[in-house]
């Protein structure tokens, strides 16, 4: 086998190796920028006629968050102002005077018809029942969310 053939084999193998590396990188790149926004996807997927009835508040859907236990018992926030920030800070929609609550503790936000509670990296955590939540968690009517010594829930 001639020198030249071997040289060509060598170069073409290195080329294959780098083509693989570069394609892998291009897949990584398209993975970063190429994902579609869920809002637009939702828009496109759901036909107008089916979306219409969803707009009006369904019977049984929550309208406000109520503090049911703790120092600020009775305080409420309307869900129409969502997302609702809960914490000790001045900008929170529900301000809690509770030493175990972080400045920006958690927030309640809507996604479609559902309500979610999401911990904002608080020190003492947000609990549903006895479980500390680690990801946005669905809330239904009457689910009790514990933040510090305070209990909150969605109400009609």
């Amino acid at each position, binding site marked *: 086998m001639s020198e030249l053939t071997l040289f060509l084999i060598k170069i073409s*193998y*290195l080329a294959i*190796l780098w083509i693989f590396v570069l*394609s892998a*990188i291009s897949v990584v790149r398209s*993975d970063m920028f190429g994902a579609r926004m869920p809002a637009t996807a*939702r828009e496109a997927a759901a036909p107008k006629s089916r979306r219409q009835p969803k707009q009006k508040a369904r019977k049984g859907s929550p309208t406000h968050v109520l503090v049911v236990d703790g120092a600020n018992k009775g305080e409420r926030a309307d869900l129409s102002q969502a997302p609702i920030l809960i914490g000790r800070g001045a900008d929170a929609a529900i301000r809690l005077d509770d030493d175990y609550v972080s400045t920006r503790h958690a927030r309640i*936000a809507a996604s*479609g018809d*559902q309500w979610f509670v999401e911990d904002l990296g608080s020190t003492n955590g947000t609990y549903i029942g006895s479980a500390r939540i680690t990801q946005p968690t669905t809330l239904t009517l009457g689910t009790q969310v514990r933040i510090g010594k305070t209990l909150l829930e969605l109400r009609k």
Partner: protein
Amino acid sequence: MAQQSGALMQFVHRRRRGAELFLLILALVVGVGAYAAVGLGVKGKVPADIVSYGGWLAVLVIAAHIAVRMVAPYADPVLLPIVAALNGLGLAVIHRIDLARGNQLARQQLVWMTIGVALFVGTLLILRDHRVLQRFTYTSGLAAIVLLLMPMAPGIGKTVNGARIWIHVGSMSFQPGEVAKVLLVVTFAGYLVLHRDALALAGRRVAMIDLPRGRDLGPILAMWVVSLGILVFQHDLGSSLLFFGLFLIMLYVATERAGWLVVGATLFVVGSYLTYVFIGHVRERFQLWSDVWAHYGPHTDDLGRQSVETMFGMAWGGLIGRGLGQGAPWRIPFAESDFIFGAIGEELGLTGSLAVILLYGLIVERALRAALISRDDIGKLLATGLGGTLALQVFVVIGGVTHLIPLTGLTTPFLSYGGSSLVANWVIVAILLRISDAARRPLPDLSLPDDADMDETQVVKLT
């Protein structure tokens, strides 16, 4: 079903299984192409068994791909192809050294790869949710220590090249430390998830560093000291370094306290000095590194042959290498296992070596990406830990081979000959894919169905 949450998530990840298949085919070309190039370079013709060899490799890769498609459809598309390419390249280089030495190691490695892929598929099938690993925090810690102790047991343990890290049962030999590595990551992650707040916040502040309370750090520290002690006792330097670094990375990531890095660096310096003074094996390795030329050639102890031959090889390889099958990698002792990167440097040159290092970099990047987008703490810590293990291992071994740091015996992930390491690394990739699948999967739509069909019974698939 797939369209979800506007406010809480920026975007929905696509499945990308097609991209994965495309990359896998390219990876096969890399693996089989290397095999063909080796045959052409050494014997002047394409090997006769290229079809059966390529076919078997393709079957393995396609089996892994189908498993991912079925049970982890949202998993990262880049990890599996990179691993397949590295494994294929490793097989070809081992085959190349076999041809020079008359061994049959590549055949055995292919068997190990088959076992590795089988375990990869098995892990994906059994481990449907990585969060269950948290239940095995202490079990896996205990299992890791038992595994690390196994080579010390008389009868099955055996000393190979100065390190007592092998067990032999019948004709099978295995390095339990490789499996212990994965188990320890699970232990550290499971423990730190529960105790990270206490570790980060409770305790005293001493000289810029928040020291945690003993009762929070104690159990995991004991666990770590025991495993490190065993390794140092077994003269397995590479793995000790790996576990040390792994523990620090995970502690740092879990507590977000940069002070740990300072503590770790100090401990590392003190520990290195102590091992240098008290363990002859370490001193020998260090002296070998600081003046390798005094240990090469006639009239010397010739201990530096490995390093010097590797450097000769890489220098001879230069920018584009000798070409597969045209170098002389058999001159390097252990060229098929610890020193495989030297053989690659010689035959594929700087161009090929950089491609390999870049591929490792991509694996680590994808692992950290999975950790970043993971929605639960255990997933974050597991992915960071597993990615960190691979990164450290690659650094220690390639640094050692290229003479940047003193030499420590570790396998190059996916490339080196060695069944235990290959199998363990395939399992690591399976766990990483499982975490990235969970992280990239859109949140399930739990909203109630419209009023009209409220009364009907429906089959709802949540995941």
